């Protein structure tokens, strides 16, 4: 079989350079996982790009070190591209579950039933509302979940909280409408961030009133995104 003979070729062609290429692959996997874990967009981008660069380097190296057919290398890169893409989208999609565990977040229904019901009636997408233990007022959306800190619940009155929840629910709805490539572009090159934020704010003002949104923003500026 063609593939088998190519595999054989791998064995004979690069017994010497194999550890080096393996090292490059390990480095690129480490960089990729770092880019998934880092939070700052800039660091995310840098690690993601360098991970891709290292893979490209190892592919180029394989290309030059082999005297046989180049097809298998191509297959390998294709395999890598597919696995890493699936991994990224998988993590994007289930990132809220990771956050629930990391923050030890609990369903909001147990302390403020009306808030979960309010979110249920907002948009077509079912969003689950969680609270987590922190005095710092914060709110964010991830996957299909909205997270708010107890510090935020302490600070805002019901109308202001509604404005924040509507803002976050819009993000979740928007994520579900946006195709994955655009989401990825947004994640790495977050240039259209302010545009999304403005749209989320407009929706929040429509639902909860401009006044509630403004007073929520003035109390907790830049802590809900």
């Amino acid at each position, binding site marked *: 079989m063609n593939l088998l003979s190519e595999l054989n070729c791998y064995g004979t062609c690069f017994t010497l350079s194999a550890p080096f290429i393996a090292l490059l692959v390990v480095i690129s996997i480490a960089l990729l996982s770092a880019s998934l874990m880092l939070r700052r967009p800039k660091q995310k981008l840098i690690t993601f790009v360098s991970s891709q660069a290292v893979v490209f380097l190892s592919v180029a190296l394989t290309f030059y070190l082999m005297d046989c057919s180049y097809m298998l290398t191509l297959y390998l890169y294709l395999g890598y591209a597919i696995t890493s893409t699936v991994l990224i989208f998988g993590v994007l999609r289930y990132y809220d579950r990771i956050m629930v565990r990391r923050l030890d977040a609990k369903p909001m229904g147990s*302390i*403020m039933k009306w808030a979960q019901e309010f979110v249920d009636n907002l948009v077509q997408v079912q969003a689950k509302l969680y609270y987590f233990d922190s*005095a710092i007022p914060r709110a964010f959306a991830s996957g299909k979940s909205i997270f708010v800190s107890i*510090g935020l619940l*302490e600070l805002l009155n019901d109308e202001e909280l509604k404005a924040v929840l509507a803002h976050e629910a819009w993000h979740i709805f928007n994520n579900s409408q946006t195709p994955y490539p655009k989401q990825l572009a947004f994640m790495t090159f977050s240039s259209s961030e302010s545009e999304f934020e403005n749209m989320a704010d407009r929706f929040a003002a429509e639902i909860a009133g401009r006044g509630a949104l403004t007073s929520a923003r003035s109390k907790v500026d830049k802590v809900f995104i």
Partner: protein
Amino acid sequence: MVKLDQINISNDGLTKFFSPIEASILKTLWNEGEMTTSELTEKTKIPLTSVAGTLDRLVKAGYAARRMENVNGRVRYVYEPVFSEEEAANEITTKILDSLVDAFGPLALANFSKYSDKK
């Protein structure tokens, strides 16, 4: 800092061992006992944006404890000190004496007895 890994000998009072905000929160908790977040910001006159992060840190480091209260649909934290002022003083003193003996051995011990004779 809360973990007592940095001591600023030149600072005053508790701020030798804690940041000014940490010290002011701890002192208030020792004086008043249980307090909510808004009571703390009022008493210490420090804005919430500075107090909130410090409170998280004090809880994580084990100097303060908090529970969540749900009153009439409003959620709030109630804080209390984990150690009394005396217990905290004991812990800090022991840690510093330990580190002095660790660094200087018998020399430190000789100085301790000189110091207690003077007093």
